[in-house]
């Protein structure tokens, strides 16, 4: 199953290495990982999208992450109401005929063209995974030259439904 986990960490050198290293050591498959500092520059937020087999593996992952000295907080957001976004830059081949067509295609995605040359355009799109996948599929017939994706970053929503799923609560 796919889980979205955030870790609040001290912004010290090597901290990302510690987390990815322990995940490699314990055979967890990282789908994407994003890092950036929070409002306090000494504290960073890491968002990890990871595939785990079952609840026990998940609990083990959360505990192992938490065990790291530089990790302040670990949260599994998957079951929560959350906002999750990633950004993708897509470079698409264009001809004078297709250029306006592409503009129409990307409009409903609220994506924008951020670079134009004679043979191609670069499109910036922000959204959840499905949205980014959808726009990529639509643009594919035109010839995609290059894609660069940031991976997911996420946050729980301000309002949460009351949850009675006790599995979420680790014993830490």
């Amino acid at each position, binding site marked *: 199953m796919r889980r979205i986990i955030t870790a609040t960490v001290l912004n010290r050198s090597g901290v990302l*290495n510690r987390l990815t290293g322990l995940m490699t050591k314990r055979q967890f498959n990282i789908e994407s990982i994003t890092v950036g500092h929070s409002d306090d520059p000494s504290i960073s937020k890491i968002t990890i999208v990871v595939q785990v087999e079952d609840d026990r593996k998940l609990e*083990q992952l959360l505990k192992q992450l*938490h065990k790291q*000295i530089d990790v302040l907080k670990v949260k599994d957001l998957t079951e929560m109401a959350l906002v999750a976004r990633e950004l993708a830059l897509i470079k698409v081949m264009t001809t004078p005929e297709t250029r306006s067509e592409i503009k129409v295609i990307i409009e409903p995605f609220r994506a924008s063209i951020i670079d134009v040359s004679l043979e191609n355009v670069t499109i910036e799109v922000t959204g959840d995974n499905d949205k980014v996948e959808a726009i990529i599929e639509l643009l594919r017939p035109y010839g995609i030259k290059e894609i660069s994706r940031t991976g997911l970053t996420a946050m729980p929503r301000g309002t949460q439904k009351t949850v009675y799923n006790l599995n979420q609560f*680790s*014993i830490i």
Partner: protein
Amino acid sequence: MKASWVAEEEKSKVLKMSGADMLMEALEKEGVDVLFGYPGGAVLPIYDALYKRNIKHILTRHEQGAIHAAQGFARVAGKPGVVIATSGPGATNLVTGIADAMIDSLPLVIFTGQVATSVIGTDAFQEADIVGITMPITKHNYQVRKVEELPRIIKEAFHLAQTGRPGPVLVDIPKDISTSIGSYKPSNEVDLPGYQPTTIPNLLQVKRLADAIAQAKKPVILAGAGVLFAKAEEEILALAEQHRIPVTNTLLGLGSFPSEHPLFLGMAGMHGTYAANTALHECDLLIGIGARFDDRLTGNLAHFAQKATVAHIDIDPAEIGKNVETLIPIVGCAKHTAAALLRESTTSGDTEEWVCQLAELKNSYPLWYKNEGDVLKPQRLLEIIHEETKGEAIVTTDVGQHQMWTAQYYGFSKPNRWVTSGGLGTMGFGFPAAIGAKIGKPELPVVAVTGDAGFQMTLQELSVLQEMKLPVVIVIVNNQSLGMVRQWQEIFYEERYSESLLPVQPDFVKLAAAYGIEAASVTTEEEARAKFAEALDSKGPFLLDCRVASDENVYPMIAPGKGIHQMIGVKP
């Protein structure tokens, strides 16, 4: 006006000193009186600072010897072992010991030199990324970037190494940090917001366990090394006696429960006793305390404690539920938890039938071997060592057959006398560990039980032994082979002894003589007893080369992949 005057005075109190001196100040402040190490280019400033100090330094002949000695020290002395090594090869030579300490949760603080900050990352002479290398095998590690950080980092390193679940902490110090001058502000408090080990257990869970104990008919306590770290032996004993619960040990937990106690079942696991393993297989309540359900203990998990409610007490939450599904998880220190449990659990279950059943098994299927012929049997040798030391000695081992025979036949009754490489299974561990153990507890006799192969991995430390005239008895259980490898090849590989026989070996007696150490070679039970007694009385080091039966196997045994109830080699 007054405030500024006070501040001025405070300022004048701030001492200026080099990083190396700060390290020495901080070590003295931590109460460190012995270091294990080996000098080299990047630690020259540190060794120069040490020259002026009154801290004992044990110069081993290899960095691996230093770290294993520090491990032996940490295991018996109850404080962290401290190691110094230089950059590059000095640091990488420590890696085996660091991994060993990590998996066996031994408190170590390791200082490595590093090339100067200006050349880090340029593949400079004797540069190795030791922080990167040891990241997965340390509890935490640091590289010092500013000299002023040193006191704080050292304070944190000692705190991390010995609190919570203990472990090795490495501090990498670039050479220019050691030489540069900074203001020394002693660090008195640690500020580690991401590290707050839970020592006091959740009372709700303790009550659940108390209820489970009240209902259990077939409970068993599995006590691991966590009991020893927490010094909870008395509480566990009281708990077992109050509720009449049989107790078994993990390999590293030996000594946490008196071996001669009627409720003691012996060690459990791959070479555990039939009674202990049957108890783990049949129990209806398994109380794991400070043990991590390692695969060598559990055997095939599909057959491990399947009928039991599992309660797991551990200070490391990540150990709970890792291998065995746990119904009653208790995060806390073994001592606090056992004490809370003693207060909460007033009702005992009816365990008499179970206790009798296990006592019967213990009686009918004890550990056994055939003591016949003139050849010295290794098991008998360990019994002799037990008898001659009255079970009071500190005993260290490597890994393999001699380790299992020691665990089975030495009979530990007191805590912190058993020093072995459990999780990592490191050959060459036992002998240097014995040196550290003797330094940590000089008042106790120390016996290093090693194999003939393992001893050859770290025997250069004979120099240290002779230099310090340490009365350590080295017992080589000499079967002229890699015994455990040979045993597995015999049983599982149709006797194809691929690269496991070592008929060519040094004359260990002459070897010891070359180092100026007294030695003897023995081949019979009588010789072994006489010479061991002589060795024990000796004022200095003594090496005993014991020629034992070379085809002896360790039994009983759970074959790999088999369940804990499928033991082979149980006494017929």
